[in-house]
């Protein structure tokens, strides 16, 4: 969809934010946060992915249909994960 001319400044801000998040995730990895290391890294990665998708890929300005397609992709990924892991995480129960 031809969206409105992208704002170059927004790209710049998003890019700086991405680099800061990268620095943050590397910095936290230097510290032992126990089981939180993974959680923090995952959250930061998700935020970065969202920034790229929303601004670089223009999901923010896209039609509802495109948003639906993105949501469907993520939903199906969740299906794959949740039902597979439902097996792995309950296997030793019997």
């Amino acid at each position, binding site marked *: 969809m031809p969206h409105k001319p992208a704002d170059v400044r927004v790209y710049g801000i998003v890019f700086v934010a991405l680099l800061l998040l990268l620095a943050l995730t590397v910095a936290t990895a230097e510290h032992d946060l126990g089981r939180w290391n993974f959680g923090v890294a995952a959250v930061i990665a998700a935020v970065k992915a969202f920034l790229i998708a929303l601004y670089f890929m223009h999901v923010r300005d896209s039609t509802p249909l495109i948003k639906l397609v993105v949501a469907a992709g993520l939903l199906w990924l969740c299906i794959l994960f949740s*039902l597979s892991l439902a*097996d792995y995480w309950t296997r030793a129960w019997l």
Partner: protein
Amino acid sequence: MPSPSTAGAVSNRTPKRDYLSAGYTVRSWLLTTDHKRIAILYLLSITLFFVIGGLAATVVRLDLMTPQADLVETETFNKLFTAHGVIMVFFFLIPSIPAVLGNFIVPLMLGARDLAFPRLNLLSWYVYVLGGLFTVYALLAGGVDTGWTFYAPYSSTYSNTYVMATAVGIFITGFSSILTGLNFIVTIHKMRAPGLTWFRLPLFIWSIYATSIIMVLGTPVLAISLFLVGMERLLGIGIFDPRLGGDPILFQHLFWFYSHPAVYIMILPSMGVVSEIIPCFCRKRPFGYSFIGFSSFAIAVFSFLVWGHHLFVSGQSIYAGMVFSILSYLVAIPSAVKVFNWTASLHKGSISFETPMLYALGFVGLFTMGGLTGLFVAALAVDVHVHDTYFIVAHFHYIMVGGAVMGYLGGIHFWWPKMTGRLYPEGWARFSAILIFVGFNLTFFPQYILGYLGMPRRYHVYPEEFQVLNVMSSAGASILGLGYFFPLTYLIWSLMYGKIASPNPWRAAGLEWQTTSPPPTDNFAETPVVVDEAYDYQHIDGVSPAGGAT
């Protein structure tokens, strides 16, 4: 809505501008981007694969007439049933209705000039052929013996047959499937004629749309599972290798995440075809249009939630087994909705029994039986007993052959006049339809009994007490084979000698019948504007009150 019901033998012949006469060179076919020509290319190639897969099945059934291995070597037998499965599933059933009938009919039904991405469409066919060549190479070079399911670690480590070439072939063909599905989704969203709202769409479009969702979201997972098997064989990356702590069940999860929904790739388009045929030969709007439509979506979504029912005895957690069992029963509901609605559509119709209708009614019956035995195999304790036996073989053949192939043949007959401009010989066609129905039941019904008795599938030698039922099944298969041979013959015959078809020989609703038979390259002289609901048969029959379609 204009409904040209007079047999237009003359009007159709004069302007030689239909898609078939747009060019006669091989080049004009191989470089075409016309969805109709691509459909014909698919038709030819999947028929070729159907014949190869059918021949493999013939030898398998012949060999199983006796309990001992006396026709072919066991290794050959294993390669034959693998070839049958791989070819029929990936190279015939999955592309059958979407790539042939879908390609041909979807743009016509939408009032569009072509699919959204015509060159991508042609590419899909080439990709399909390339994948087919790899698989054919594997078969000629020596075959593959893993079964179409490629379970690790047998496929990844132990089999020393042509697993790699076959896996590459299927991997490549997967792209064809993805691109076709993608093309349909975009086309259905973006290329509908003015006035053609979602609830005016023919039900065939709904089902093709649902199918495309599965193709787009499921196929990549098959790709990754075969890719991992390939990497294990090629590079020794042991994702499924128990010696590295790898889990063979993970392969099954990934494989069935696609391969269960794949069953719906095969059956949903057939349901769509049946939803076109029944209203036409009942001369009325289908009962519960929106319920049939939405149940297609429900099936597409639920189909992704149930794959673990293939793993009830695999070592999957029994709690996960229960989750998958309960979810599997969800699929029963939209399936039941469809069957009941089709049946109710007959009520107060004006029913005639041309060949497409015979196939459609046969479909409803056989799909009902296949679907009801689905309740057996989703019931955990019963599945433990029948898993990997002939009960399963019978169950999925009722769905895939009794369902999908019957729908495919019904659709081919229904749209044959549109595709070729010729009528097929009705008598022969009715005869073969009945032959196929009888032969099919004789082939596969005994296999239910065989399965519950405990005969495992993929057995070359088997205990003697199973022989009677096996012989019955093989006898039925010969009738079935004959039934398939007839259409192959008379349809080719009709290309030259069949009666010239009018634009709308069935006086059917739907935009595809408003253009000439065969349609011109650009499909419509001018973009049609839709003002009526789908299946407006009262209107059509009101215009020409002949009553009945004959």
